[in-house]
């Protein structure tokens, strides 16, 4: 029911709002409009935006007050949504402006902190834009979903973090590799491997649950071993390529010098002899380093790990079939070995 008090409040609010709006307009727009150049002035844009926001705020308040007595009224909710939308629109504008300011005016540009703040603002904006449109009972579900999504995004962000953190060096190394820098190729494969190990690689170690837990874990482990093997092999291969590339460069350079001294190979066969011996020497130097010995050991080890894990997968797959598995036979071999040893020892004692 409408009351006298409602009516008085309404009129007070109308006058008050109009006064505030007029004051704001006077304080913001009028001083800036005296100079044409002020349109290019960021402070002008800020003050105009502030005015718009305040105008929006005042009007929202105004309608909130006048419609306070009829919250269930569809008119109220329409206006409410309208102003919420306006608010979202302004938020988006603020985000865009923030991006403009930081992207073009901040040096060095801190992409990570910008992305964090942008993400937060984006969630806020989406939340305030769509949430009010939904029926009230659904709004909680919507809000909770956003929270879950936020959590998911944080986790995803952590997962991708090594890749985003290293995107610049990876790009740089990749470009250098394309330009023929053999060192960059080695570093590139190393960085790829490190990124994998600190991101996707962790997926394979996630504990699994339920009846088929063991089955899934064995499969995941085998997949992880395979990827590790490929990564290590890539690193190994790139190390070999690096030597091949550098040796070819040396050969070209030396050949030019030999040409100056008239000592160059006289035929292709002579060149071939010179070529393979230079390569052999270069690889021998590489093979003699501790780093290579360790890398070779890693390659062998990762290959062996894959074999072991894949053997486990196969054993699991075939365990339902009516024939003995490798582990069964190994157990049998051990028993036979121990028994044979006992028999020999006893025979010697008898002799």
């Amino acid at each position, binding site marked *: 029911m409408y009351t006298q008090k409602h009516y008085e409040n309404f009129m007070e609010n109308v006058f008050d709002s109009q006064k505030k709006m007029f004051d704001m307009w006077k304080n913001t727009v009028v001083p800036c409009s005296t100079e044409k150049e002020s349109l290019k002035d960021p402070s002008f844009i800020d003050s105009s935006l502030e005015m718009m926001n305040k105008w929006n705020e005042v009007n929202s308040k105004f309608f909130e007050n006048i419609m306070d007595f009829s919250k269930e009224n569809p008119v109220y909710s329409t206006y409410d949504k309208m102003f919420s939308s306006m608010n979202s629109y302004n938020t988006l504008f603020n985000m865009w402006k923030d991006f403009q300011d930081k992207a073009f005016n901040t040096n060095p540009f801190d992409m990570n902190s910008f992305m964090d703040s942008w993400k937060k603002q984006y969630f806020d904006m989406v939340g305030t834009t769509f949430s009010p449109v939904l029926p009230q009972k659904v709004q909680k579900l919507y809000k909770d979903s956003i929270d879950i999504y936020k959590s998911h995004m944080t986790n995803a962000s952590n997962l991708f973090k090594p890749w985003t953190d290293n995107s610049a060096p990876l790009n740089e190394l990749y470009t250098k590799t394309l330009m023929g820098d053999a060192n960059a190729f080695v570093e590139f494969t190393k960085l790829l491997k490190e990124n994998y190990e600190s991101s996707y690689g962790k997926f394979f170690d996630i504990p699994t649950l339920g009846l088929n837990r063991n089955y899934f874990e064995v499969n995941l482990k085998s997949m992880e071993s395979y990827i590790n093997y490929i990564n290590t092999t890539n690193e190994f291969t790139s190390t070999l390529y690096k030597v091949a590339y550098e040796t070819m460069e040396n050969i070209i350079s030396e050949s030019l010098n030999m040409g100056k001294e*008239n000592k160059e190979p006289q035929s292709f066969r002579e060149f071939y002899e010179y070529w393979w011996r230079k390569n052999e020497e270069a690889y021998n130097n590489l093979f003699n380093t*501790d780093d290579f010995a*360790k890398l070779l050991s890693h390659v*062998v080890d990762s290959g062996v790990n894959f074999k072991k894990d894949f053997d486990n997968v196969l054993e699991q797959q075939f365990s339902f079939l009516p024939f003995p598995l490798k582990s069964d036979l190994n157990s049998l*071999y051990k028993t036979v070995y121990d028994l044979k040893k006992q028999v020999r020892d006893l025979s010697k004692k008898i002799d």
Partner: protein
Amino acid sequence: MFPYLNIDVEKSIDEFIETNKKLSNGVKYMMDIKDLESDSTPKDISYTEDKMKLYHYKSQCEKVSKTPTLIVYALVNRQYMMDIQPDRSVIKKLLESGLDIYIIDWGYPKQEDMYLTMDDYINGYINNAVDHILKTNNVDKVNLMGICQGGTFSSIYSSLYPEKVKNLVTMVTPIDFGVDEGLLFKWGKHLNIDNMVDAYGVLPGDLMNSGYLMLKPFQLMLDKYVNLVDNIHKPDIMTNFIRMEKWIFDSPGQVGETLRQFVNDLYKGNKLVKGELKLGDKEVNLKNITMPLLNIYAEYDHLVPPSSSAALNDLVSSTDKELASFSVGHIGMYVSSKSQKEIAPKLANWLLERD
């Protein structure tokens, strides 16, 4: 064609055409090559145990040494390298010189042999073979001739059973694994052999071979075959080459537990030199080697550094000991022309002098 080199293009084209001509004709020559059998010197099986066979070669001269000689080959590759072909057989040469030769053939281990240890090989198979020879010949001692890893085993055996060994000959034998030479020694120190043994049980011979090929990749995987084209029309050379090739890739698997101890205790721990090696319940002390010792190394050995072999002479108590070397490689010790002209005579004479 080669803008940065003053290569004689005409000569290069001639070479190219000539090589291709040889290659295309090579098929015809290859079809005529007879794959002569290695390991053809007459012999009998004297004793067997599991997959191990002890062969006794038939004497090839009237006067034979009193002390039989047992050759202990490595577990890697096959023992018939010492009898690779009739005209270059070290065995044949030793027999002709008057030695009485036995040789151990380790066979091809299968998964069922995966748990055999160094203790089983040395205190078991070698000791049983020696006992069999002693009993059969009614003698107290044998000459022991160890090749490569077989030399390491023979040295260990001689230190554990000095009373059964009259003379010890070691050839291209790794003893000191702490030397800073040789790729195998360097790589072996970083190898996770436990993981490999756990995975394979018996390590495939091909896996081992790929490691050996990596030691000299361009020479062993490329140049060796490029040069072959030059000789493809020469049946003798091709026959010898194919026989060697067959032997190189005739690689038995390696028994896991034995390899585990060999790598961990020797390559990594260098326990033989430190006097810390144990086989079963027996401690190995090289100082127990008191019999005459002939230690031979190859000056161009890319598998066993000469300094690793040479170390043995300083670790034994023998007063009659000799360190000899030849300007050959690891395999050249047995298949080169020097093996016939210098090395086999040296072995025979040294042993006969101490018979």
